[in-house]
């Protein structure tokens, strides 16, 4: 099971955090700070996995943004790496050539997409079509709501 997922920039700005296990705010902040430091210090050609505390960390950098997942000892690193990639693909498809700014200004959308893809730290559906269909349906509902709002 995934414990948490973080998106942060090269400059160490946190763009998205998703926690799948209850934890105090203070503890979360400490972990984010610590882990960002570790990951940002790594060089480009290094491997995508590392041991950190009692967890395994899987990360990958896309342009200016780091995607970083913490998984448990038994979990599969490579499939987690592809999980990150699939999430990036979903964002890309939804926003159209996604960039860091899209995620900053539409952070709530990034959360909704992640929620359709992962739940409670496990994959809910790996089909790109299913996830995007769910999001688009929700968007349609939003449009409806907006129209009613206007009326």
């Amino acid at each position: 099971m995934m414990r948490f997922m973080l998106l942060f920039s090269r400059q160490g700005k946190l763009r998205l955090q998703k926690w799948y296990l209850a934890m105090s705010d203070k503890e979360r902040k400490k972990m984010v700070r610590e882990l960002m430091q570790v990951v940002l210090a790594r060089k480009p050609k290094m491997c995508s996995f590392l041991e950190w505390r009692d967890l395994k960390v899987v990360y990958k950098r896309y342009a200016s943004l780091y995607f970083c997942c913490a998984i448990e000892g038994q979990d599969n690193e490579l499939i987690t790496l592809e999980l990150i990639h699939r999430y990036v693909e979903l964002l890309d498809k939804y926003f159209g050539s996604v960039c860091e700014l899209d995620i900053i200004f539409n952070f709530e959308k990034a959360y909704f997409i992640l929620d359709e893809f992962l739940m409670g730290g496990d994959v809910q559906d790996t089909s790109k079509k299913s996830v995007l269909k769910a999001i688009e349906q929700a968007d349609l509902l939003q449009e409806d709501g907006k129209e009613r709002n206007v009326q």
Partner: protein
Amino acid sequence: MPAVSKGDGMRGLAVFISDIRNCKSKEAEIKRINKELANIRSKFKGDKALDGYSKKKYVCKLLFIFLLGHDIDFGHMEAVNLLSSNRYTEKQIGYLFISVLVNSNSELIRLINNAIKNDLASRNPTFMGLALHCIANVGSREMAEAFAGEIPKILVAGDTMDSVKQSAALCLLRLYRTSPDLVPMGDWTSRVVHLLNDQHLGVVTAATSLITTLAQKNPEEFKTSVSLAVSRLSRIVTSASTDLQDYTYYFVPAPWLSVKLLRLLQCYPPPEDPAVRGRLTECLETILNKAQEPPKSKKVQHSNAKNAVLFEAISLIIHHDSEPNLLVRACNQLGQFLQHRETNLRYLALESMCTLASSEFSHEAVKTHIETVINALKTERDVSVRQRAVDLLYAMCDRSNAQQIVAEMLNYLETADYSIREEIVLKVAILAEKYAVDYTWYVDTILNLIRIAGDYVSEEVWYRVIQIVINRDDVQGYAAKTVFEALQAPACHENLVKVGGYILGEFGNLIAGDPRSSPLIQFNLLHSKFHLCSVPTRALLLSTYIKFVNLFPEIKTTIQDVLRSDSQLKNADVELQQRAVEYLRLSTIASTDILATVLEEMPPFPERESSILAKLKKKKGPSTVTDLEETKKERSADMNGGTEPAPVNASAVSTPSPSADLLGLGTGPPPNAAPAPASSGSLLVDVFSEPASAVTQLAPGSQENFASPDLASSELVSEEPSEAARGADELTHKFVCKNNGVLFENQLLQIGLKSEFRQNLGRMFIFYGNKTSTQFLTFTPTLICSDELQSNLNLQTKPVDPTVDGGAQVQQVVNIECISDFTEAPVLNIQFRYGGTFQNVSVKLPITLNKFFQPTEMASQDFFQRWKQLSNPQQEVQNIFKAKHPMDPEITKAKIIGFGSALLEEVDPNPANFVGAGIIHTRTAQIGCLLRLEPNLQAQMYRLTLRTSKETVSQRLCELLSEQF
């Protein structure tokens, strides 16, 4: 699709985010945020009711502020209000806020639960999805209480939509993880298992996660999932790469589901049903085969997904640990990856091989990769990969390659990253101990560790080396010599001072005969480090000094001077001051015999799990290390007698002592050595931790041994020694130069001795071993001394238990005091009944005058000066005799040292001669002795000359020593 057109843009939010991004400084950002917070607060508190859109916008702003890392302490109520909105867009933001920001405010949770309940009952799949997500995100106990009964129903209901089923499965999984007691097992479980057959692969994926976790806790209940998982897996791996449509990922069919199914199968042993088992083996073989096929795409996603399945398959193969063929194939596959250009694969291959190394089928196959792994340690640029290499070397280590692996790890340690040094130190220490054939190698390795990475050598490591040295007498002399040499380095690590201080305090006497490491030199060496050390180390050194007072009476005054100095007696540190005061006092008032008892050598430590291993487990998390260790233990049991070397037992095998025998003499703990004080729980340093109790702990048996009024001196009857004993002089000679061994043995009884002497005092442990399977009755050992002997030698002992069980051993302690010089030996008479017959055994007890020797070092000039002073004819006794043994100078030296005198090198102008010096201690007098032994190789003769201040002493020593060559 430009981002702004998606959904309903909240312009106010976008403006706020832009403002924040444009802030030039942290201060400006905080100022802008505070302004916004004040604005939102006033809107929420305002009289005008907010419409849904405004509420949503402000809640969203709060969320953004929170995600920037600021605390949010209001807005929860507004978010809860949004939950009950009919508009999806508002509801969604409300749920998001709750998911991200919820706290355990139970009042709020109740309100949230109400909203969730409504949405779950709405039968609107989108709303149900939001509600389920919220439960899964918060996952609190209150939520489990409210919904754990409801969700299984949604999950297995026939009319539930697939997407809701997926959410329900994962939501239930989350609740089960936090509150398993609240999720009732029931009819639904069997229907959940059948979701593995569902047509919708998304449903199967979600259900497999749930089933895996449930099966870990309730394997019986979910047993049927095994065959279903195997058939599902089989269909996936044999499908063409396009069959599964959108569930094919870069030409790999359903990689996520495959990995999950393989995980599920790891909850169970290999399937019993041969058909299922065969099908699974086929699947695994197919996966292994595919790894050899050319890639269908050059994209890294393709190979990653494919290899993710492959690694999970290998995990399952290792978990089953039953198919040698598959294990070896897995190992070969990983071997290929070890040299792959992708760092990720090298990393994972090293990691997987670690577990493979613990399987008996593949351990040897893993070992063939040792050179590659060592190379990885040297060349990998990434510390996390090097760390895996260290782990693998540790896992593949066994007796055959331990020396190489430990050497490589020590090598690597010199340049290793600081982050992993401590762990490497622990690993080296464990391996060195576990696979030590030769304990001198172990001692060298640990001292190297301290030299290379002293800062990373934790307490556990140096405690352990001391435990081992104390428990193994064959390494004590070497350890003393080695630490002494290591301490010569001008800048040695404080940990070395600790180890050195402790070991010299216990065993410094073993090297004191060498003038280069005489007592004073040892002391000065240690004391030269004293002022550079921390308080705990100084405290330890003070204990070493008081032990020196006992070991080396000749430097007592030097040590007392040090203890008496203001820097000790008036030290600002209470601990040090107290030790100095108490030790000084102890050295002043205690008689030598009390000192000898109080400061006796440490008794052997009871065997227990290595504290280092415990530490490594703690560091690595119990699961990872334990499993590995447990399996390794089983495997290595036959190689090294268990994972932990058991020094006490092992020494019976490797101690070169000729007395190794069925009693295990010289290996058992001295019987009077009190068991390690209870308070010292597990660590030897506890002995030093409390100065007040240190003295009593060091002298656990002093009361009993010296002050007890019921000492059985009445047992000492005056009687003529029996004839049998008179003939036993041969036996006595055997013990002149050594203190331990078998004194007597017949078919019924074995008598072993272990003794120690210090100045005019001694203690002898007599071990009576019943070699039969029948009890000895009225077992009565008696010490017999002639009147004359009784006035010169004071022996005290206690009666032993009159019954000795078959195969059992009883011990008797004899306390000895030499009052004046003596020539006779006491006789030990043993009477007992064995199967109705009366048995009587008499044997001379080898207590000889030379046992009370203390060696004296002196220079050539002094020796000859004293030699001349003892020129009185009565003082000299000379004997010329024929050699009875081969004339080997090394053996001769050893015998002279064993005899008790110092062996003086470079004193006699003729290097072939041996000279020695020492002092015989008796209560009434101290008698200086000089000796000279001149071998004549041609004639195979010796001339032995003794000069002492007392004629009888010269006579007796000459007799005793002449018999030895």
